[in-house]
């Protein structure tokens, strides 16, 4: 070392003090587990909270808020399908809905039946008393009993006020999500997934209510499970679509059968035809 440098002693600095020893995966694990637990707690609390709030909303108020949804707004909720009442079987279906709803005397809803032009068999209950049935479902229906159960099942959703509950939960959880993690598909999918358990319970309850109306109207429950049975045989994609939010078809049919036996409703009976035979022989 030269004179002009004075007393300079070379020493390696210890860099480790600036970097923590925690393994990044350990850090990730703790954060994911901790925040996951908080999220689950938030979901459970908000579900109870929404249930309380839904009880405070009168059906008249619900109808005022949602009863005037326009066709194009409903269409957007149904994957952009065209919404109409101009369908050959609209009147008949609406009449069937009316008949079934009479078996629920405490109903306070004014039901409105709409048809969505769609190639996917489906039926949806919307807040405010609107039931939307797809044209494909009407095309596929083999008996009145089958369609009656689909409609009665949707009435069951109104009975449980499931649509409002679901809307409330999704809104609340999305709000919490957007405030924390931020908006985006990840958040909406996660909130959707976390509500699946509640969705399935709602579907089960709606099934039981639907069965009750069908049993009251027809005196038996024959044909009620046909819609699900056919879906089960349909293309995989359809099945996937359906079972994602709803309980598995077999599980569902088993539950329905068990419930009917418990209630003592006959499982067999004469099916009421839905579509009139296309060619009717002229009577002389």
């Amino acid at each position, binding site marked *: 070392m030269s004179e002009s*440098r*004075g007393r300079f002693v070379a020493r*390696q600095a210890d860099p480790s003090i600036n970097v*923590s020893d925690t393994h990044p995966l350990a850090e990730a694990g703790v954060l994911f587990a901790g*925040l996951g637990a908080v999220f689950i707690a938030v979901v459970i609390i908000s579900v109870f909270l929404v249930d309380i709030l839904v009880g405070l909303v009168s059906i008249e108020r619900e109808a005022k808020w949602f009863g005037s949804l326009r066709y194009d707004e409903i269409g957007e909720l149904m994957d952009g399908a065209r919404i109409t009442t101009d369908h050959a079987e609209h009147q008949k279906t609406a009449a069937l809905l009316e008949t079934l709803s009479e078996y629920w005397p405490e109903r306070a809803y004014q039901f409105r039946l709409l048809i969505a032009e769609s190639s996917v068999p489906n039926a949806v209950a919307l807040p405010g008393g609107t039931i939307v049935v797809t044209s494909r479902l009407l095309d596929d229906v083999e008996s009145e009993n089958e369609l009656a159960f689909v409609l009665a099942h949707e009435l069951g959703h109104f009975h449980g006020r499931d649509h409002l509950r679901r809307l409330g939960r999704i809104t609340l959880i999305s709000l919490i999500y957007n405030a924390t993690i*931020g908006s985006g598909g990840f958040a909406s*999918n996660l909130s959707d997934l976390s509500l699946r358990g509640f969705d399935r319970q709602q579907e089960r309850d709606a099934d039981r209510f639907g069965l009750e109306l069908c049993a009251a109207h027809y005196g038996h429950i024959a044909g009620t499970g046909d819609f699900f049975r056919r879906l089960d045989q349909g293309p995989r994609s359809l099945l996937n*679509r359906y079972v994602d939010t709803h309980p598995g078809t077999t599980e569902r049919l088993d539950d329905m059968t068990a419930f009917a036996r418990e209630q003592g409703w006959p499982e067999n009976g004469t099916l009421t035809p839905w579509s009139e035979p296309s060619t009717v022989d002229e009577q002389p």
Partner: protein
Amino acid sequence: MGETISLVINIGLPLTLLVVAYIVGTIIERRHFKSIERREASLREFPAMTSEQIPAGWTATESQLMVGSIVVSLDYFKRIIAGLRGLIGGRVKTYEPLLDRARREAMLRLLEQARTHNFDAVINVRLETSRMANSQGDRGTAGVEMLAIGTAIRLAGQ
């Protein structure tokens, strides 16, 4: 089907990205630290100090401004973990190695440059950072520049 696709896109994709980012990020980080340690060892004898004055007894014959700079960005894994950390606060541990690398790399570049130009020491060393704005608005940051500046001096009789 549509549901499955949206699940894959919205949840599967970020998770895959998280794993890939972690693996790639770890490999790159390890390599970088190795390179930093090797170069630091070779520069151990090269004096660098924060003092503004030339130490007493030293005689400088020439001086020049030296700049070493590096721009670093976060990988997806660090970004997500730091985002979660941001919810509850605390030490953002995933950023520490990243900024440590940036600091040391900027210093190394400064010192290596000084040595290449046959200087004997660097005095008045300063470190500066500047945040680069993200092109997609003000959410997050595109990266941070770490700038090391100092005055390189050549000593008499070297």
